[in-house]
């Protein structure tokens, strides 16, 4: 590996070092948005009145697989919903 390759490698690492933080921040923000979405959809199950409980049922099959990760992230080891078993 000559010095040009080495320098290129260092440049790449610096770039990555810079970009990864922003990427992480954006990804985190996105995840927060998705978590909020989950909360809105599952709010009725958590006792918050939700006028659209019936209508959001059709989202359930689409969201179910993300449900486990969501409740773990929310700091709950088990499903917070007593009638909604997860793990």
């Amino acid at each position: 590996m000559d010095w040009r390759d080495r320098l290129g490698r260092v440049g790449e690492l610096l770039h990555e070092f810079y970009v990864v933080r922003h990427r992480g921040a954006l990804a985190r923000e996105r995840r927060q948005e998705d978590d909020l979405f989950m909360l809105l959809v599952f709010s009725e199950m958590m006792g918050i009145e939700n006028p659209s409980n019936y209508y959001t049922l059709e989202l359930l099959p689409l969201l179910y697989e993300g449900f486990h990760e969501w409740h773990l992230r929310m700091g709950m080891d088990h499903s917070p919903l007593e009638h909604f078993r997860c793990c």
Partner: protein
Amino acid sequence: MNSLPLEGRSILFVGGKGGVGKSTTAAALALHLAESGEQILLVSTDPAHSLGDLFDTSVGDQKREIIPGLHALEIDPEQEIQRYLARVKSTMRHYVQPAMYSEIERQIELTRHSPGAEEAALMDRVTSLMEEGPTSHDRIIFDTAPTGHTLRLLALPEIMAAWTTGLLRSRERSASLGKAVDRLRGREEARGDELAWFDDVKEPATDERTQKIQEVLLERQQRFSRARRLLLDPKMTAFILVLIPEKLPILESEKMFKVLKRHKVPVAGVVVNRILPKNQTLGEFLESRRSQEAEYLERVEKAFAKLPRVQIPLLSHDVEGIDALREVAQHLEIDR
């Protein structure tokens, strides 16, 4: 001002306090229009259906012909819920691993009995009938449930449209953040993913599933806003208030009128039902009743001064069967 302006209005709602003759008025109106050569669909949304009794025949959840030109149906929320849940279950089979079926199915079954489910199902059916009705019939007439229920039904499209819009916006923000992340990732792909361990956040998959969530929400939102637009269009829709000249029905109709105005629902007029017949001596008892009625009629005139008012006299017999409905209908002055 003594006829109901219904020209070109193809969606009619008939409403008022329980027991004032909403169904009778709606049925008589439907019969009258059908016998004038229109194709009419009469729909009861009241959980305590009475169209079948009025027409002396059986009416169910699917439309059936009562006389040539007049079809009727009585919405059964139970059956609507059934259809909806079946639809959700079939989506589930596409998106969920079979191991999870039973859990989700349990959740679906719980929804069947959740508060608000019947109302939501009813609303689903009403909105789809509002769209379909005018395509296959000249007019669709809704015999609505007592006041409170109906007002809620009118407000729901607004609430729901706001709700779904909020959810959609959240999904859009998520998607655009996702794109920004992908853009920063561009270099990495060329280089291979050896540095991916730097990322502390796992990516939610932007796949078919995300797409589908968006679609489902969008369809809901569009459906609600279409219903709302129809409901508020004075060229398409008219609300007819039915009352009898008594204190409580008048009070309730005044309240209802206020709410309708606030929601900007077009009101075509008032039907004052069961007025003691004129040109007839009624005896002392009923004459004193009549003088009280006169006061209430005055009150109706004041409260609904700007609305056309139509009067239907009290009949000597129950309104049941087509002939009796015709008798009522001849008092319904309509511009059509």
